């Protein structure tokens, strides 16, 4: 339409007509950038040489027209309009030396870049979709043969397993794994019961060790278990207020007596 990019204002009639045509289609645009790209096509020039000023003008006309026609425009279209109005003023007015920030030309160049990039991506997308596609133009094997996954299980057992198994069977009644053997374990419950029975006689301070049950003092394993259980039981009784505990020094013998003794 525009035969001369500099005579923008004289183009407004054509722009208005174009904008009116676009408005019908406003739902068809994917946002303001898409609309700008479509508008830029009317300039019929290379995107690199596009007049951003003219484009801004066309866009503003479009938004103006939409307002007249009471068409609800999404917020981002209005944000873009505000930004383009700002850009337009920057491009038209002589640069303010005190003004910081990018110049109108820089902003315009970036917008042109964005438009060119979007156009390029659209073209690339079209090229991509125009390629031969699997399942449409070329095909994969129709009867794929599954790779069967063969799981070979090797059962393992060694001579030791075999002998242990046999030993286990032959001594089924007697054989018990060591961990299950509780013969040498004196439980806290046992110790508690024993201490409760004896504590009444302990008016004086008596070594805790003297409360170990008979037959549990010689074998070190048994002795350890009995000591631990008796100690735990003494703590339990002390907590219940039944006895008092004392120890004169680190590692010194622990002594107990009845609490009210």
């Amino acid at each position, binding site marked *: 339409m525009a035969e001369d990019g500099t005579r923008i204002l004289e183009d407004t009639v054509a722009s208005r007509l174009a904008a009116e045509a676009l408005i019908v289609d406003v739902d068809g645009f994917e946002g303001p950038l898409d609309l700008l790209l479509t508008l830029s096509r009317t300039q019929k020039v290379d995107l690199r040489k596009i007049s951003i000023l003219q484009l801004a003008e066309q866009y503003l006309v479009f938004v103006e027209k939409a307002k007249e026609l009471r068409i609800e425009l999404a917020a981002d279209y209005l944000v873009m309009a505000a930004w383009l109005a700002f850009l337009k003023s920057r491009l038209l007015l002589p640069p303010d030396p005190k003004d910081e920030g990018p110049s109108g030309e820089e902003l315009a160049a970036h917008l042109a870049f964005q438009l060119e990039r979007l156009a390029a991506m659209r073209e690339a997308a079209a090229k991509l979709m125009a390629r031969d596609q699997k399942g449409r133009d070329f095909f994969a094997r*129709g009867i794929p043969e599954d*790779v069967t996954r*063969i799981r070979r*299980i090797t059962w393992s057992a060694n001579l030791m397993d075999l002998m242990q198994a*046999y030993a286990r069977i032959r001594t089924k*009644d007697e054989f*018990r794994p060591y961990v299950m053997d509780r013969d040498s374990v004196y439980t806290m419950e046992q110790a508690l019961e024993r201490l409760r029975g004896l504590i009444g006689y302990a008016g004086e301070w008596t070594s805790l060790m003297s409360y170990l049950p008979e037959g549990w003092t010689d074998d070190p394993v048994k002795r350890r278990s009995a000591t631990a259980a008796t100690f735990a039981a003494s703590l339990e009784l002390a907590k219940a207020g039944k006895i008092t505990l004392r120890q004169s020094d680190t590692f010194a013998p622990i002594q107990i007596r009845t609490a009210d003794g």
Partner: protein
Amino acid sequence: MADDPQTESLFEAPPLGEQERMVEAILFASAEPVSVAELNARMPHGADANQALSLLTKRYDGRGVHVVRVGEGWALRTAPDLGFLMQKETRETRKLSRAAIETLAIIAYHQPVTRAEIEEIRGVSVSRGTVDQLLEMEWIKFGRRRMTPGRPVTYVVTPGFLDHFGLESARDLPGLKELRAAGLLDNRPPPGTGEDEDSDNDGQDDMFSEGEPQ
């Protein structure tokens, strides 16, 4: 583009080489074997699927893929001798179950032994699966039938078993005394059996004779 060959074909069938390509592509992409009639229907007018098929069959002769006839249709299939390529092997080693190893031990120590005897020794019934597994592993096999009522089958261990466990014969299996010495048995002699258990070959039947498979 897609229509060109068909348009052309109104005038002339495509060259035979081209027909062969077509049959090749159709057979490759089809999910089912394709009949000659269907090939002809799908190819441009004037094409002769039969001729193209025989060319294609020759071309694939000796290749990794063959043209094969399946019922009324034709299909491409990988050469049978390359079937091993279609497998992905994963090896997995698993511990034999306790039931299996115990059953195996009893067979090894007491062979030939019947299932009833195994159950008596283990004190629990022996599942069919356990015995089958051992048979399948070829660690045990059927021995002679026992000449007792019902003529039950017996089980014995195989050379494969001996090989796996590094034994020359089942006689090499350590006896109870050795098991005890090796710490595999409780040190206390089981009540009532005394020290003589290992040499105890008299009163009891051979089921309980110690580690002396014949």
